């Protein structure tokens, strides 16, 4: 088996392990929300111990107070703080460790691909998609080391599996050398940073989606208060989700700015002009402007919160289109897809 084949097989292996992780995270969400439903039913039946009191006794007063943006906020915090014996989130623990394993496997597969091709492993759509999934996973696991964001696990592993599958099925090209236009250290810098920014935008996007869902549920949306959506209680409040999403988007935006600048420098070297409104350049610009608008929206009264999250959705849609649509539909200079 050649190194290139080894890499391809290992990618499937990583996807399998991530699927296990996804199932574990999903089970965790289901279990916790089921327990919650149970607890609140029990609570309704016995009015003996008011929620707020038990919260205080567990030292959860701060969390319930700060997060208490919801009518049920206080009691929610109570359940988290008092009811959750650690061993009862065993599924989430399995999710985290399998996510690590899958991420490492994917990393090895990517490295092997680089060895097989004899260059940085992100020169075509196939490789870009794999590395993007890898970055999203690393961002998730990295943040999770410092603060518990296991509620996001199912979504990040899910989107990573989706990326990997699309890469393997639709974007695959054999590992190979580079055409002259790509033979430059700018490939490592410009494309490398672009993937990191995209991976970060991906995780931030997931947070903004959850923010919107959670917010609608808290506002009493009929659909989102049906059974089956109880897991949303596991996510932080919309305010906190917005804050988390913002912090990632801020990092992503700075990296994207760098990507665009580096792209312009490279274009100056390779194509003889720093900016020519090639479709890829147009859409990178659109992405940049939408995220800039997002940052401005956050600071403008009436546009913050929910509306800011819509900007993230639009921005991320542009990121995805810039990658897929522009590469596959338009015929520009950026035809590095290898397809």
């Amino acid at each position, binding site marked *: 088996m050649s190194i290139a084949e080894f890499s391809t097989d290992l990618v499937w292996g990583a996807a399998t392990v991530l699927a296990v992780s996804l199932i574990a995270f999903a089970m965790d969400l289901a279990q916790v929300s089921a327990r919650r439903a149970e607890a609140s039913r029990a609570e309704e039946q016995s009015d003996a111990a008011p929620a707020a009191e038990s919260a205080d006794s567990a030292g959860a007063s701060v969390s319930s107070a700060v997060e208490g943006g919801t009518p049920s906020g206080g009691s929610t915090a109570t359940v988290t703080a008092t009811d959750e014996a650690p061993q009862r989130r065993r599924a989430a623990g399995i999710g985290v460790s399998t996510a690590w394993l899958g991420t490492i496997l994917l990393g090895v597969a990517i490295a092997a691909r680089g060895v097989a091709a004899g260059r940085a492993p992100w020169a075509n759509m196939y490789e870009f998609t794999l590395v993007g999934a890898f970055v999203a996973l690393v961002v998730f696991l990295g943040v999770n080391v410092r603060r518990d964001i296991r509620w996001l696990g199912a979504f990040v592993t899910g989107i990573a599996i989706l990326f990997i599958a699309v890469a393997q099925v639709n974007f695959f090209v054999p590992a190979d050398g580079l055409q002259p236009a790509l033979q430059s250290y700018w490939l490592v810098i410009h494309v490398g940073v672009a993937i990191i920014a995209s991976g970060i935008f991906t995780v931030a996007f997931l947070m903004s989606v959850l923010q919107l869902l959670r917010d609608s549920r808290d506002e009493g949306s009929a659909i989102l208060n049906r059974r089956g959506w109880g897991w949303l209680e596991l996510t932080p409040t919309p305010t906190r989700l917005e804050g988390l999403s913002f912090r990632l988007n801020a990092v992503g*935006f700075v990296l994207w700015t760098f990507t665009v600048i580096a792209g312009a420098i490279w274009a100056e070297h390779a194509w003889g002009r720093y900016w020519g409104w090639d479709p890829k350049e147009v859409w990178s*610009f659109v992405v940049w402007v939408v995220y800039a608008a997002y940052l401005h929206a956050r600071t403008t009264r009436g546009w913050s919160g929910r509306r800011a999250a819509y900007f993230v959705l639009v921005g991320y849609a542009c990121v995805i289109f810039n990658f897929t649509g522009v590469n596959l539909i338009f015929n520009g200079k950026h035809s590095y897809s290898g397809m």
Partner: protein
Amino acid sequence: MARTPYRPEGIDDAFSTGESSSARPDGSSPAPAARPTAPAIGVRGMLRWMWRQLTSMRVALLLLMLLAVAAVPGSVLPQTSQDAAAVAAYLVDHPTTGPWLEAAGFFDVYSSVWFSAIYLLLFVSLVGCILPRTAAHWRALRGRPPRTPRRFARFPAQATGTSSAAPEAVADAAVLHLRGRRRVLPIFRVERGEEPATANRPATATVAAERGYLRESGNLLFHLALLGLLVSVATGQMLHYRGQAILVEERGFANSVVDYDTFENGALFDPTSLEAFTMTLDRFESEFDAVGTPRDFTAYVTVTEPGGEPTSETIKVNHPLDAGDAKIYLQGNGYAPDVTVRDADGEVAFAGPVPFIPEDQVYTSRGVIKVPDVSPGLEQIGFVGYLLPTAVMEDGGARSVYPQPGNPQLVLDVYTGDLGLDEGVPQNVYSLDTDDMTPSTEEDGTPTTIVLGVGDTVDLPDGGSITFEDLPRYVALDLRHDPALGFILTFSLLALGGLAVSLFTPRRRVWLRTWAEDGRTVVEVAGLARHDDAGLQGQVDDLLADLPGIGAGDDDTSSDDTTSDDTTTNGEADGPAPRKADR
């Protein structure tokens, strides 16, 4: 959630201090957003109103979104500046909508009136918004940290403790801790204060500190750098030139307008000021892998600067060459079959290399040979057809299988008649106008197709002959001069730096109050951050822990604040988050 106060309001830089947590009715403009309802505001009032609107964040936001939307059509529709032929084809295919789109500038989006209007308005808005902020920031930089608030209870980060040291010593230590070791660039700007005794508290020592001025500095730098970027790009447009030249192996080029195939320059560039270097293409080398994917292109050239010695240089993709005041880029390459055409009188009517344009991966190249200078009385000759670098003959015809010249063949159709060159209309050298020409045919009436290998000579049906002498290569070069590049790069990097600083510098205020009570020293610390700030509570706790004589028996506030994940994000609540539910 739009109602939760976790956002500071727009441009207002002073973060609210609890007493006035909703000072701004509308955060969208540096001046309190005027919403004039009065009808009689007059022309000046009207102008002022418009200016306020234009410089408001909300309008900036709308303009930004408009800019994003306006940029999109340029990626969907063909653009004249990139592909004029595609625009022409589009106009032919869409006879009804095409002309409308053209009139509305959709084939030149990025120089269209509407696109320019959006970004110019945006920049006007930016200037109107940045100048007052720069002034305000300048004042803030020389101001003092905000005074210590009376009550700490409502601040998002707090800590309390007791110390065995005297209040004065505690306050002094706090000043040192906050200021940091360096005198020049202190972490916090700090001010010591004193408060006289009140009815329910003895006299206290206070410390007020603020950090993060760089955040606003970075933000202003970012916006000003964008402005600089726009100005440099515009300047570059005025002063630049760009030309394309095709250079066949062993041929020379002199840097003057006549030697270019195409040349354009900015309004302020004087074409006679071109530096007159000369250049010869000695050799062009290309490498392909087994399936014909390009791996390397190198042009070996000799450059002679005016008054200098000839020097040998190489030009590669990604490695442009500096010559004169221009950079020379390798943009394309191909084959230029060297042919000799004799007319029916046996005179040489044409001789020389003719660049053919590669149309696919294997360099199947299309070209036109025009032979106007035939002997008097004879008809002009035109050839149109293909060069196949590695031709294989199949029953249907010939095709190329590899980009390198393994078995080069010229496959040409022949026309005779009037090439139409004398009509004074500039012609595309790569297309043959056959309106006034007739295709040569064999005796049986089928059109003649000539197939030639290198060295072959074939007689033409109407007399004369064509010889395929040799197969030199050519390179397509772009020569470009833009004196603004350095500025453009500098401003881009300044913008990037300013952006990073403005997004990642925490803005924090920390206050400390300490007094003697019951034989011990009580210390209270409070922190407030603008923007999301995960580290605020940590900052407050570190300060407390670093004070002299801090004993156990702390109030429990500080300890459960540090361990609870939730409080670390308290900074999201920008005003002092009330400790009860947000709404």
